[in-house]
C-alpha cells in the first residue's frame, strides 16, 4: 500500500479546521449558517462513527443469512422512501419493494456469477447499498413523472380508451417517458464519468492506494450495475404502477 493510506486522528483534527473556515465565512458574511453548519458536522461525526462501528461488526459476520437479511432491510427502507414520492400510487410500498428487489437480485447475481464480487458482507453490503439507493432515486423520479403525466395527459389516455384501447396501449407513452425519466440521470452520469468528476468509488480506491487502472475496473463494474439496476427497477415499477391509475372497468380514476 502507498504511504498515506491511513489517516491519523491528529491529521483529522487539523483537517477539521476546514470547518472553521466555513464558519468564518458564514459569520462575516452574515449568512446565518453557523448553527446549521455545527449541527451538520456534529451529525456527520456521530452518524459516521456509528456506521463505522456497525459496519465493522457486520463485516465480521460471515453468515450469508445475516447479509441477506440486511440487504432486505435496506431494500425495504429504500422502497418506503421511494413510495413516498408516489403517494397517489396504490400499493406503492409493495411495488417499490418488488422493483428494487428485482433490480438488486438480477444485478448482484450477474456480478457474483462473473466473479467480480463474492458473497462476502464487505463486498455485498456496500455494493448492494449503491444498487439499492440508485434504484430508489430512479423510482422516485419515475413516480413523480407517472403521477404528473396521468394528470396532464388525461385527455390523451381517455381518447385512446374511447377508441377501444386497453389500458396499456392507452398509457404506453406515459410509461415510456416515466421509465426514461428514471434512467436518464444514470445514463448522463455514465457519459461524463472521469470528465466532470472522478466518481466517489474510484476516488476512494485511489486514496486507499489502489492503482488507477485497477480502480477503473471497479468503476466500470459500478457503472454497468447502475445501468442495469435502474433499467430493471424503473421498468418493473412503472409496469406495476400504471395499472393503479385505472379501475377494474378500465376507466381512468
Amino acid at each position, binding site marked *: 500500500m502507498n504511504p498515506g493510506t491511513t489517516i491519523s486522528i491528529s491529521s483529522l483534527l487539523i483537517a477539521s479546521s476546514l470547518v472553521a473556515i466555513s464558519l468564518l465565512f458564514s459569520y462575516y458574511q452574515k449568512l446565518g449558517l453557523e448553527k446549521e453548519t455545527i449541527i451538520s458536522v456534529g451529525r456527520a461525526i456521530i452518524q459516521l462513527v456509528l456506521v463505522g462501528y456497525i459496519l465493522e461488526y457486520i463485516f465480521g459476520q460471515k453468515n450469508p443469512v445475516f447479509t441477506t437479511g440486511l440487504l432486505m432491510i435496506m431494500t425495504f427502507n429504500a422502497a418506503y422512501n421511494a413510495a413516498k414520492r408516489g403517494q397517489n400510487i396504490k400499493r406503492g410500498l409493495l411495488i417499490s419493494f418488488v422493483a428494487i428487489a428485482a433490480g438488486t437480485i438480477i444485478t448482484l447475481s450477474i456480478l457474483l456469477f462473473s466473479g467480480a464480487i463474492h458473497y462476502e458482507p464487505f463486498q455485498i453490503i456496500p455494493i448492494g447499498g449503491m444498487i439499492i439507493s440508485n434504484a430508489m432515486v430512479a423510482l422516485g423520479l419515475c413516480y413523480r413523472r407517472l403521477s404528473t403525466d396521468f394528470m396532464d395527459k388525461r*385527455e*390523451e389516455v*381517455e*381518447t*385512446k*380508451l*374511447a*377508441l*377501444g*384501447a*386497453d389500458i396499456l*396501449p392507452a398509457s404506453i*407513452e406515459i410509461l415510456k417517458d416515466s421509465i426514461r425519466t428514471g434512467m436518464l440521470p444514470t445514463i448522463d452520469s455514465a457519459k461524463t464519468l472521469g470528465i466532470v468528476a472522478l466518481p466517489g468509488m474510484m476516488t476512494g480506491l485511489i486514496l486507499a492506494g489502489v492503482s488507477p487502472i485497477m480502480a477503473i475496473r471497479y468503476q466500470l463494474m459500478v457503472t454497468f450495475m447502475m445501468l442495469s439496476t435502474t433499467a430493471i427497477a424503473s421498468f418493473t415499477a412503472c409496469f406495476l404502477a400504471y395499472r393503479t391509475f385505472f379501475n377494474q*372497468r*378500465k*376507466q*381512468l380514476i
Partner: protein
Amino acid sequence: MSLLEMQKVSYQNEKKLILQEISLKVAAGDFISLVGPSGSGKSTILKLCCHLLSPTQGKILFKGKDIKQYNPLDLRRRIAYCAQTPYLFGETVEDNFSFPYLIRKQKIDLARVQTLLSRFNLDGKILKNRVQSLSGGEKQRIALIRTLLFKPEILLLDEVTSALDVANTELVEKEIYTLNQTGMTILWVTHSPEQSRKYANILLSLEQGKIKTREVLK
C-alpha cells in the same frame, strides 16, 4: 327493447352532483340531439354511455344487459365517443388512423382511410402532415374519422362541429345524417338550436343535471 337505456342514472364527482336520476331510452336508428347550457351534464352523459365513467347510482343497459357485464374494450368499440376537444396523438395524422387498427392487431386499411378523408373534405396527402400543423377544423374532422374507421353501432358526438366553418359544418352534418340513414344510432351534443333540430328525431334539453324537456321531432 331499447338499444341503450339509462335507468335513473346519477353521477357525482368529488366536487358536485353532475347528473340526477336521468332516464333515457335510445332505440336503434335514433338520432338524438342533446342541448343545454355548459355544465348541464351533456358530456357526462356521453362518457357514461361509452363507459369511460360509471354511474354513482342507477343503471345503463346496452341491448337489455347492464353495461358492467360487457368487456369495456369491446363496448367502447361498439359505442364510440368523439370528444369535444379533438385530441390528436403521435406525430402525424397517419399515427391517429393506424392506432385503431393497431389495437385490433390489424394493418391500416388505407383505402378506407382515403374514402373517409374525401368524404369529410380532406386531402389524402394530409396523412403525412404533422399533428401540430393542423387547423382546429382539420383536427376535429380527423378525430371524427378516427372514431368512424370501424363503423360503431352507436356514435356519441360532443360538439364535433364547433371548430368548423359554415361549409364544413354542413358537410359533417350531412355525413353524420347519412351514417344515421344507414343504420348507425347517433347521440349528439350541440350548442346550436338550429343544428339540434335539423336532422334529429328526438331533442332532449338538459338543465342542471336533469332532463328538462323531451321533444319528438319526427
